[in-house]
């Protein structure tokens, strides 16, 4: 194995470790910003880590009548998210897994995690579990095609559905970021990331009010280490999606396909700053908006789907031929 491949592999390992270690910090930071803006003291940035430690020490309880679906769902969610973290070009472009999975693979993995959790919600046989699963799948059915379309719109200028190719094409030609296609794709992607990670206009993860909860209703029966794994995985999904968005639209500082040690460090610092910035903006905006009524959510998501479709048409049909 040559040194450059080893360094590329190191970058991938580093980015998985960083996602695992820093995702609770991202969640904690967002909660802290919200708390401060609302005039509360807040639990501190490290609170999600302390919660995870507490949950991991607790006894594992399994509800009576649940099957293997319920038992394995947290592992599936966490596993798919870690795999996505290894595939995405977060720190460096040349991930060893990069040729194996393109954008469609990533969206498929994302959906696999969602489906595992919804099945687990149904498996418990409680009213809340079924309700949460039904709501989650309603949202996911509109979110997944929108992510596909939005990233597809961005892939037209780069002539490839490979995420690393898209990021490097944007980095070489930043002018295309202000085209109508990528602006529409940006708005559509922002809306679906908010919906997918259960942030405020769509879901409010800090409440357990039966009328409104979506994600929390599905995982209501989990306790102890499994709950910790589910919470951790949802934090990682948020971090990974923010990282994807950051590198699609601000592709600076990402190390190349054959990185040096210094480039990897720069890439790590750059992606941390970008994710922190995006998370801060999201948390700040969250304070000023109210939760949408559940029956208005499909409206918002259909709108973002349409924006993504327009993004594709704009970047595909308006594109002037190069010859």
């Amino acid at each position, binding site marked *: 194995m040559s040194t450059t491949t080893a360094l590329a592999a190191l970058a991938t390992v580093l980015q998985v470790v960083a996602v695992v270690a820093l995702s609770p910090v991202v969640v904690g930071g967002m909660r802290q910003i919200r708390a401060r803006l609302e005039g509360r003291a807040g639990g501190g940035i490290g609170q999600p880590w302390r919660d995870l430690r507490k949950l991991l020490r607790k006894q594992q309880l399994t509800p009576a009548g649940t099957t293997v679906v319920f038992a394995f769902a947290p592992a599936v969610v966490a596993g798919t998210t870690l795999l996505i973290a290894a595939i995405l070009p977060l720190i460096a472009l040349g991930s060893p897994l990069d040729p194996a999975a393109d954008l469609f693979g990533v969206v498929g993995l994302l959906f696999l995690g969602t489906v595992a959790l919804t099945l687990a919600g149904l498996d418990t046989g409680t009213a809340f579990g079924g309700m949460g699963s039904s709501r989650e799948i309603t949202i996911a059915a509109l979110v997944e095609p929108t992510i596909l379309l939005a990233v597809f719109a961005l892939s037209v200028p780069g002539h490839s559905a490979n995420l690393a190719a898209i990021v490097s094409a944007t980095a070489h030609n930043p002018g295309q970021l202000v085209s109508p296609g990528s602006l529409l794709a940006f708005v559509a992607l922002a809306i679906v990331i908010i919906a997918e990670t259960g942030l405020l206009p769509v879901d409010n993860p800090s409440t357990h009010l039966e009328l409104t909860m979506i994600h929390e209703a599905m995982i209501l029966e989990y306790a102890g280490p499994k709950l910790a794994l589910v919470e951790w995985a949802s934090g990682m999904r948020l971090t990974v999606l923010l990282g994807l968005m950051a590198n699609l639209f601000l592709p600076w500082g990402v190390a190349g396909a054959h990185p040096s040690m210094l480039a990897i460090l720069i890439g790590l610092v750059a992606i941390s700053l970008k994710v922190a910035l995006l998370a801060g903006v999201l948390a700040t905006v969250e304070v000023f908006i109210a939760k949408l009524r559940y029956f208005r959510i499909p409206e918002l998501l259909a709108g973002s789907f349409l924006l993504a479709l327009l993004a594709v048409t704009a970047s595909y*049909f*308006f594109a002037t031929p190069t010859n």
Partner: protein
Amino acid sequence: MTQATYNGVLNLAAGAFLLAAVLIVWRRELRSIVALLAWQGIALAAIPLTEGVYQHDGALIVVGVVVLLLRAVALPLLLAQAVGTEAGERRESTPLVNTTSSLLITAALTVLAYAVTRPIITLDPSPSTRAVPAAFAVILIAVFVMVSRRRALSQAVGFMMLDNGIAATAFLITAGVPLIVELGASLDVLFAVLVLGLLTGHMRRTFGGTDLDQLRELRG
């Protein structure tokens, strides 16, 4: 103006033109619908203005200025006035098709517009004909808005959007309508809106509302 800037501005104008139509389908507040119509007028006027500057054609610039004054200023003002007098009727009542389905139908109409305008693009693949599908999509969306909305005013907005779409298609395909034709068409629309405004006012005085669904029964 270089070729690249010309392409960029033309695409941005066509994109904004289509986006305004989509947002009109999305929003229900009558005031914001009228404001969006004004934005659409600006995007429409940008098309002849850009072409006029690029081709050094004075007449096109005059047409662009006329379009700007009429469709981005005069007509929205007239409509806003009509909205302002309707106390308690600031919102579109639930459309015949709900918003989610409307948005998905809009998506389908956009794709349809791209499909049916393919032959026009292959005839003469220039930057302006490439934007024709966007204008054509606005025509289809406008017809959809006209049949799916209940308030007289939102139907009027649909009519104006239809006219905007036809004008944009004409600008993009012919690269310049004769001044006299454009003036005639603009005058036509102005009078249509004045008549529509009068009619809505009259309807409201007589029946107390402009929800067209409630006007099916005879009143004596």
